[in-house]
């Protein structure tokens, strides 16, 4: 066999051997590149991060505004209702009104918010009633006088009140 033929055979064998060694590496590289490309295309991390930052800011602002408020909805619990009645009783004492009766019932929803109603009958004069109403507006929980009736009389009058208290719903 000629020298050139022998060298050509050797060269071919060397090339095939080298290719056999290097092809798996090449294949691994190609597969990894493909995987990274497919993974990279499904990512939009920057956008999500921006949204999170923005959302944190909005929550902070909302929580701040909630913390700054002085009025709250009364929790829907017996303890809270009793506490509200106690506040009313304290308000009566402070204003000088004399309690005749106090009763509590479930009320109609106001603007879709469930309520309970405290029916109160008191005796007193106009200034005492005004002071009591002022005290009501200063309470922690939102309430509204849905019925106020001052009966005829001389001096101390009988006053009927229905005070609706909106309840906090589970949001």
């Amino acid at each position, binding site marked *: 066999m000629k020298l050139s033929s022998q060298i050509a055979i050797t060269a071919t064998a060397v090339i095939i051997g080298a290719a056999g060694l290097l092809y798996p590496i090449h294949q691994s590289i190609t597969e990894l590149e493909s995987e990274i490309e497919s993974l990279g295309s499904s990512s939009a991390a920057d956008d999500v991060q921006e949204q999170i930052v923005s959302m944190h800011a909005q929550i902070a602002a909302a929580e701040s505004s909630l913390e700054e408020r002085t009025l709250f909805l009364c929790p829907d619990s017996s303890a809270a209702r009793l506490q509200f009645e106690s506040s009313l009783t304290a308000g009566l004492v402070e204003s000088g009104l004399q309690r005749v009766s106090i009763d509590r019932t479930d009320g109609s929803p106001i603007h879709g918010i469930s309520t309970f109603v405290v029916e109160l009958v008191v005796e007193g004069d106009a200034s005492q009633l005004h002071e009591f109403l002022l005290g009501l507006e200063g309470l922690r929980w939102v309430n*509204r006088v849905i019925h106020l009736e001052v009966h005829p009389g001389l001096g101390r009058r009988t006053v009927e009140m229905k005070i609706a208290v909106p309840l906090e719903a589970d949001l």
Partner: protein
Amino acid sequence: MKSQKVSHIGIVVADQVLRAAQRIDGRIVSSQVPLGDDMKRSMRKLLSSSPFSGRNIVVGLEGDSVLVESMVVPSRSSNAAEGLAAERLKGDPVFNDETSVLGVSVAPATGRGEQSMVILAAVNRERIAAVMAACREQALTVQGVETAALASWRAWSGTGNQLRLVRGERQDIILAGVDSKLMFCRVVEGPMSAAELRATITRASSLFSGSFDSLSVSGSFGPEMQAMAQGLGLAVETTMADMDDPQALGLAMEGAVLAEFTPPEERELRTRRQVRKTRMVMIAAAAAAAVVVGVLGFQRISVLKADKLSVETRLRVESESRTELAKLDQQLRGSQALAAEVTRGQPGHAMSRLFSLVLNAAPEDVMLESTVVDDVEDAPVVVQTKKRGRRGSEEEKPVGPVPRSLVVRLGGLAGSDVAVSRFAADLFASEAFADVRIETSERTLLDNGMEGERFRIYARAETR
């Protein structure tokens, strides 16, 4: 590590001595040992006697086993010259066709028409075989087999017509040529006499049909010879001091080989070695390339794996971020809804202010007997929309949140109807009420016997 520029080892195999020379980085390493019966042993001794490098050798034969002659033949054809040379040796008891290998170098003779100058060399076959066997046993790579006399022409270079004398212990060589081409060679048993040198130079000049200006001499050159050279008009030049063996050095030098006597089997061995060497070089190069590419490939794979891990981590963080975002969104909606509920549940008026406003609006001659305030829901505002379908029936839908109103009913006694009207006008002027109406106002006799005005006023205020 600095690579050395190393020539082959030129080994002269003479009758009773082995000589060797090698050029290593311009420096000449040479050695000489007696040739005993065991050529292999002598060869080993020769190579170990000086710091020779490598196993590649060129062998040059010298002495009784070699015949070198120069002649002029009447043809420029090399085949014809070889035929004539073979004819010349026919019948020779020592160098005939059976006992020796013939080598012929043909060069056109200048100024002699169709004639050629031929150097005929013949080497004894047995001698070559013995040398080859010794070389194989010593694992030496024989690159060529020549005659030492002809190889001595390569020991040093020159230009133009050159005439050289190489003096040895047992034989002297007269060489003549042009540039790097040797055209005449005569080997004479030493020591050569001045007369014989003169005769040889004269013959060379006649065959060469050229003139020589100088004689380049390697070795001793006595006064008698000096005189002879002067007589021929030749300037004598001596070679370098370190060139004590031009034959061995010539064998070690690269250049044209005039007559090669390498046996065919040795040539085949040489080819095989060449192939093996080439294969090894290719395999080594391929292996090195594969290692380099492999290392780079594995580096690339590790980098890509790190990239993949990074992307996967980023995706995991992104997924966690999305979950957190959803939670935050829910939290935000809850906070906002709570704030909206509080605002929605809060009345749009202050009852204390309304009560105070009513009391303050009442003139002095008006006495309120009864006051009723009702916070009521207004009738919802509705729009009529057509249902889709064949009948196209209409349905009512509420628009927006249901508004609320404060309905105030006041009853009492006044001094006059004017006072009642003023009271109603003042209530309306307060801008707290959207509607103020006197429902009834009639004269009545009071308990104290005086007349008064009994009235009922209706007022409505919008709120939230």
